[in-house]
C-alpha cells in the first residue's frame, strides 16, 4: 500500500534556550491510503502540536513531513496554500464555518477558488450532501442549523476536493453524544464509502473506538499503537481504555 503521510524524526520545541518545552520529541510514523487513524493522548502530550505540524499550520523544529511524497517542511507560503487546497481537508472542533456564506457556499468555497466548472461543483456538492445527510439544509446559513449539522457541513467541505488526507481536530469536542455518534458514523462512511484517508486527534475513547488504528502520544513521543483488526467496536473500546489506564493522565474515560 502507498503511504499518504510519512513523518520522520519530527521534533517541535517551544520557548527560549533556558526553558525549552519539547512538545514533540522525535516522532516517526506513517499512514497508508484509505486508513482511518486516531491520535490519542492526555492534555499536553503533543496531539494538537503534531496535527498543526502535519496540517502546515505550524512548523517543525526538525524532521520531515511527507504528504503524498511531498516534503511540506520545504515548501514556501504560496506552495503551501495550493497544497492545502488540493491535498488536505480540515475538520475543526468549533467548525470554522464562515457565517456570511450559506452551507452550500461554505462547501463550495475551495472549489470555486480552484476555478472548477460551476455545474460540476454543484453536482459534487449534491453527491456529498446526500451521503452526509445534509441535502436539506444547503441553502441555510450556519447560524440556522444545529452543531451536528454544522460539523457534517465541515466534513462535506473537507471532502469536496477529494483530498489525499483529511485532518480532524477533536471533531466531536463541541457535540453532544448523539451528534457525536452520528458524526463518527459519517466519518466511517467517508472513510469506507468515499475512500478518504482520515487522521483524527481526540482524547475521547468513544470517538477513538470508531477508527482502524490508534497512536498514543505521551510527552511528545509515540507511546503505543493499537489496531482494531477483526475486533468488535466494544472490544476495541475496552482495549483503548486499558492503554489509557496504562498511560495515566487526565483522559476522559467515560462517555
Amino acid at each position: 500500500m502507498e503511504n499518504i503521510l510519512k513523518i520522520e524524526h519530527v521534533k517541535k520545541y517551544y520557548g527560549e534556550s533556558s526553558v525549552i518545552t519539547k512538545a514533540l520529541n522525535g516522532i516517526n510514523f506513517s499512514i497508508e491510503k484509505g486508513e482511518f487513524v486516531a491520535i490519542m493522548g492526555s492534555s499536553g502530550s503533543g496531539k494538537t502540536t503534531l496535527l498543526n505540524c502535519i496540517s502546515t499550520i505550524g512548523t517543525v523544529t526538525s524532521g520531515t513531513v511527507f504528504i503524498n511524497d511531498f516534503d511540506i517542511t520545504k515548501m514556501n507560503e504560496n506552495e503551501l496554500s495550493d497544497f492545502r487546497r488540493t491535498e488536505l481537508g480540515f475538520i475543526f472542533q468549533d467548525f470554522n464555518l464562515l457565517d456570511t456564506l450559506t452551507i452550500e457556499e461554505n462547501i463550495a468555497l475551495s472549489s470555486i477558488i480552484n476555478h472548477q466548472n460551476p455545474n460540476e461543483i454543484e453536482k459534487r456538492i449534491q453527491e456529498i450532501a446526500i451521503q452526509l445527510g445534509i441535502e436539506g439544509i444547503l441553502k441555510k446559513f450556519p447560524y440556522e442549523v444545529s452543531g451536528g449539522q454544522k460539523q457534517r457541513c465541515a466534513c462535506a467541505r473537507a471532502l469536496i476536493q477529494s483530498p489525499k488526507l483529511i485532518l480532524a481536530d477533536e471533531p466531536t469536542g463541541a457535540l453532544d453524544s448523539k451528534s457525536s455518534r452520528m458524526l463518527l458514523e459519517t466519518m466511517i462512511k467517508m472513510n469506507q464509502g468515499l475512500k478518504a484517508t482520515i487522521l483524527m486527534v481526540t482524547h475521547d475513547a468513544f470517538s477513538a473506538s470508531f477508527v482502524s488504528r490508534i497512536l498514543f502520544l505521551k510527552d511528545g513521543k509515540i507511546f503505543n499503537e493499537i489496531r482494531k483488526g477483526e475486533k468488535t467496536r466494544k472490544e476495541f473500546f475496552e482495549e483503548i481504555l486499558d492503554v489509557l489506564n496504562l498511560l495515566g493522565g487526565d483522559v476522559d474515560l467515560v462517555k
Partner: protein
Amino acid sequence: MLILLNKLAIRNVKRSMKDYVIYLITVTLAFSFLFALNLVSNAKEVLALSNIMENFKMVMIVVNFIVVLIICFLINYTSKFMFQKRSKEFGTYLILGIKKNQITKLFTLENLLLGVFSFLLSFPIGYFFSMLLSFIMMNIFELPALIKINLSMEAFFLSFLSFLLIYFFVLFFLRKRMKKLKIYDLLYLEKKNETAKIPTKIRHYGFFLSLSLGILAFLLFDNQFKSIGVEPSMTIILISFFFMILSIYGITLTLADFLVKFVLKSKNRKYKKDYLFITRTFSSKIKTMSFTMGTLTFLITLTLIALNLSSLMKGMFEYQIKRNAPYEIIISKKGMDFAEEFQIIKENYSITEQFHYQDYQDTNNNIRNKIQKEEHFGWKEIDNIIKLSDLNQLLLLQQKEPMYLNEFEFSILCSKEIRKELNQMDVNQITLANQITLQKKEIKSDGYYSNLSFGLSYIIVVPDEAVKDLPSNLNHLIINTKEKTNENLASELSFQLAPDICKKTDKGYDICYYLSNLVVRGQKIATNKGMLTICSFVCFYMAFIFISVAGTILAIQSLSDATKYKYRYTVLKKLGVRKENIRKTILKQLLLFFLFPVIYPIIISFFTIFSMNRIFQISLETNTTYFTYFIINLFLFIIIYFIYFLATYFGYKKNIDE
C-alpha cells in the same frame, strides 16, 4: 473566483455596517465637514467678505491636513480592530487554501467599499452643512442674504485628495499587517491571553512619576505666563507641552493598576456592591488598550485647550470692540467744524445720539513724568484732562454709572494695562498748570476706551472749574446711529478727514491706512469678526472631529466587548444577579470607561486656561470671565461626548439582552 470574493466582500461590508454604525456615521460626518469647509473656504463670495478671509483658505488647508491625519488614525484603528475580530475567519480562508494576497485583496476591498460609501454620502451631507455654515456666516457678518455656495471643482478635488491620502496610508498599514500574518496566530488569536504591555512594578512607580511630570509641566507652563509684558518663551512652552504628553500617556498607562490596588486593598471596598467586578473588568480593558487610551486622552486634552483658547480669543475681541469702539462713530480733530462729516453720516444714517466735547492739556505733566515703564509711555508727551461733566455724559451714553468728585479732587481713568503702575505711583496730590492743586480720589478702569485719551493710556478727570485757563487739545464728536455702521462709512469719513492717504477707486473707496482719530464701530467689528470667524471655525471644527474620533473608538471597543464578553453577564445572571442590577453594572462600567480619558484633560485644560488668563485678563470683561468660558466649553464638549456615550450604552444593552 473573483465573483465569490466580491460577493463575500459585499456581504462582509453589510455585516460590518451593523457592527460599525457609529464608526460609519463618524467617518461620514468627518468627510462631510471636510467637504463643507472646502466648499466654503473656496467660495468666491466668502473670500470677498473681508480682506482677512484670504487667510481663511490657507488656514483651512493646514487644518484639513491635521483632520486628515486624525481620520487616518481612526480608520486605521478601526480596520486593525475589525481585523483582530475576524482573525479566525481569515485563518479559515488561509486553511482552505486561499492565498494571502487574495485575502489581503478581499479585506482591502471591504475597507475601500466602506470608505467609498462614506465618501459618496459625504457630498450631499457636506453640501447641506455648507449651507448651514453660510447661514451662520450671514448672521456673523450681518449680511442681507445667504452667501451662495457653488459646488466648486476645487472643493471636490481637495476632498478627493484627502480621501486618497487617508486611504493610501490606511491600506499601506493594512498590507503591512497582512504580510506578517501566520495561520497559527490567526486561528488561535482568540484563545491567547491578553497581556499587559508594561510590568506591574514599573506601572506602580510610573503613576507617581507621571503625576510629578504633569505638575512639572504645569509649573513650567505657568511660569511663562507670570505677568503681562514678559514674552513667553516658545522653547519652554514646547518643553512643557512635551512633558504634558509624556505625563498623559504615563498616567493612562498606570492609573488602572493604581485604581485596582486602591479598590482591592480594603476588604470593605472590595466586597461592596459590584466594585470588584467593575474594577477588574475595567482594569483589564485599560491595560490591554492603554496606548490607545493615552492617545484618546491626548486628543481630548487638545480639544478642551483649543475650545478654551478660542473662547479667550473671542472674549478678547469682544472686549476690544467695547474698549475701542463704545460708540458707533468717534471723530477727533483740532477744529470745531464737523459739518462735512455730519453731511456724510446723514446721507445713509439717522443719528440717534450725538455729543461734542473738548479735552484739555496740562503742561505740568504730573503723571506723564512719573511713568517708569517704557511700554506705558504712549506717543503723546502731555497729560490729557477731561471735565467731569463731559465724562459723565460719555459714561451715560455707555449706560454706565457716573463718576463723583468733590471740589479739589481728581481721579484717573485708565486702561487695565497701566493701572497697576498708576496705583503704585506717588500722585496723591497734583498741581495743574493753572496752579490749582487737587487731591487724588481714585484710579478707575471702568468705562475707559482707547480714544478717550488719544495717544496715552490714561486721562485725568477734574471738576469742571479746574480746567480754567488750560489750553484745549482736541474736539471730539461722538455719534450713535440707528443703523449699524459699516466699513464703507469708515472709508468715506477717512477720505474726508485725510484725503491724501486714501485713494478712490472705481468700485468705491479703498482704505490704505486706518486713521487713529476716526473710530467706526462697523469697521472694527468687520476686521475683528474675520479673525474671530476663522479662529472659531477652526477650533470648533477640530474639536468636533477630535471628540467624534475619541467617542467612536470608545464606542467600537465597548460594543465589541459586549459581544465578546457576553458570557460574563450570563454568568452574573446565572449567579442570581437581577436584570436591572446587571444594567446598572453596565452603566457604571461604561461610564467609567468613557470618563477615564476625560478626567485628566479636564484638569490640564483648567490649569492651562488659568495660566493663560493672566495674559488675557486685561483684555477680558472681568478677571474671572475665563472660568465661565471653561464651564461653557466643558458643557459643549460633554454634550457631544454624551451622545456617543448614549449610543454605546443602548447598543451595549441590546447586545447583552439578545
